[in-house]
């Protein structure tokens, strides 16, 4: 039932770092789909984060440039202090628009635009976090046909973000971090077309 999924979009904030590491360390270097990570991070530390994720990931993690084409074989991490939007041309568009709900990057914005572009070809996942960003975005992607998952609040280090998603709508699955890893693994025979 997941063979239509062509891209995985993951949003997270406080408490999501270890889950992201777990996900990245579990996927093989031949994972066939692009993965987009929209994670809240410190604005004034530009270096170190992408390096630390690359230490555990077999697929290269990159901070894309504006207009970069999304390709399989890469994990795209939002550059610090930019919003990251996905264009209908399947390219990345960055923006320095002011904070949205006190956040830049805005997870809402990444999910909304990715959902608009990829419709039912997208899987969206919201992880642990201590604020409400992401809920509107994943709901918008859901309305566009995306398959949606949220980390089980009881399993999340900070449950505000997953709880906020559940206030908006009922996602397809509520999963523990281990099961999220399992879900992503189940996409390993998919194709990015």
């Amino acid at each position, binding site marked *: 039932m997941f063979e239509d999924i062509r891209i995985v979009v993951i949003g997270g904030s406080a408490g999501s770092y270890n889950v992201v590491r777990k996900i990245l360390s579990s996927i093989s270097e031949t994972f066939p789909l692009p993965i987009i990570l929209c994670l809240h991070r410190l604005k004034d530390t530009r270096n170190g984060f992408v390096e630390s994720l690359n230490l555990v990931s077999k697929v290269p993690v990159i901070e894309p440039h504006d207009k970069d084409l999304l390709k399989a074989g890469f994990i795209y991490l939002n550059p610090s202090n930019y919003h990251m*939007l996905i264009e209908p041309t399947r390219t990345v*568009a960055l923006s320095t*628009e002011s904070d949205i709900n006190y956040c830049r990057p805005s997870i809402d914005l990444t999910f909304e635009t990715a959902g608009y572009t990829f419709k039912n070809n997208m899987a969206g996942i919201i992880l642990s976090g201590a604020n409400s960003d992401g809920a509107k975005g994943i709901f918008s992607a859901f309305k566009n046909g995306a398959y949606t998952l949220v980390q089980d609040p009881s399993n999340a280090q900070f449950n505000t973000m997953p709880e906020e998603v559940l206030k908006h709508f009922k996602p397809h699955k509520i999963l523990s971090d281990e099961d999220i890893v399992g879900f992503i693994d189940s996409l390993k025979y998919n194709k990015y077309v």
Partner: protein
Amino acid sequence: MEEIGIKDMKKVIDVLSISQGVNFNDYAFSSFKRRIIRFLDLNKIRDLNEFTELIRTDNAYAENLVKEITVNVTEMFRDPNFWIAIRDNVLPKIRNNSPLNIWHAACSSGEEVYSMAILLHEAGLLENSRIVATDLNKSVLNIAEKGIYSLKSQGTNQRNYLEFGGKGNLSDWYVVNGNTVQYDRKLINNVEFRCHNLAGGEMKDNFDLILCRNVLIYFNSELQEKVIQDFSRNMSQGSFLGIGSKESIVWCRASKLFEEESPIDKIYRRINEKEKLNYFNLQENTHCKL
């Protein structure tokens, strides 16, 4: 509110093009759409037809929309490493040019104009500089000219300035007035603020340094191409162009007119094509010898 599609955006773009004479066709789709949605939310508009009717008939309303779409948020000394590279790598190569010609293209509310002026002052070059600061949005130019910013935003500015390794205290350059601060007028003695549209207008000048940071991200590739061409026409061999840390000109045909000066900080040096050919030949020859 219903989903806004490409057709709806086209309609808004057409209306704005007729009523305001501003062409948004070459703007990046998702950020343009995002701005429209933000405007609709702020103004609590739910009906798109009502919206297009309003921008068609109400000039002040449409003007305000254009303002909202084109406003760009920035901070002083954003990406301190960029400013360090300007100070330590770029200025030594152009500091003897008299006057030192600098263009802040799409300067928005002017934070980078003041950053540059402080940097030039600390390098002893401000007096000898001629700075042109342009934007298409008159109201942000107005803010830039006044140099009045929120007190709250000075925290980030201070941090950036500190990381940049400025010689003094940033607070020496402004006076606090309630919730706002006003930057020293002395900084903009040699600055000419001018209304200019990168998408349409023409500039005829010769700059030693052009800064256009985090502006190209709002344009599509065609418009980026045009803008980079325009920049190259306003530069001589050996002048510099600085863009945003996540922007790139490698896709542009005009990129053949530039060499990377500081790749991480996105600073390029204008060359002529002949020089580049020589450069490649040289590389090739060296390679053969090895």
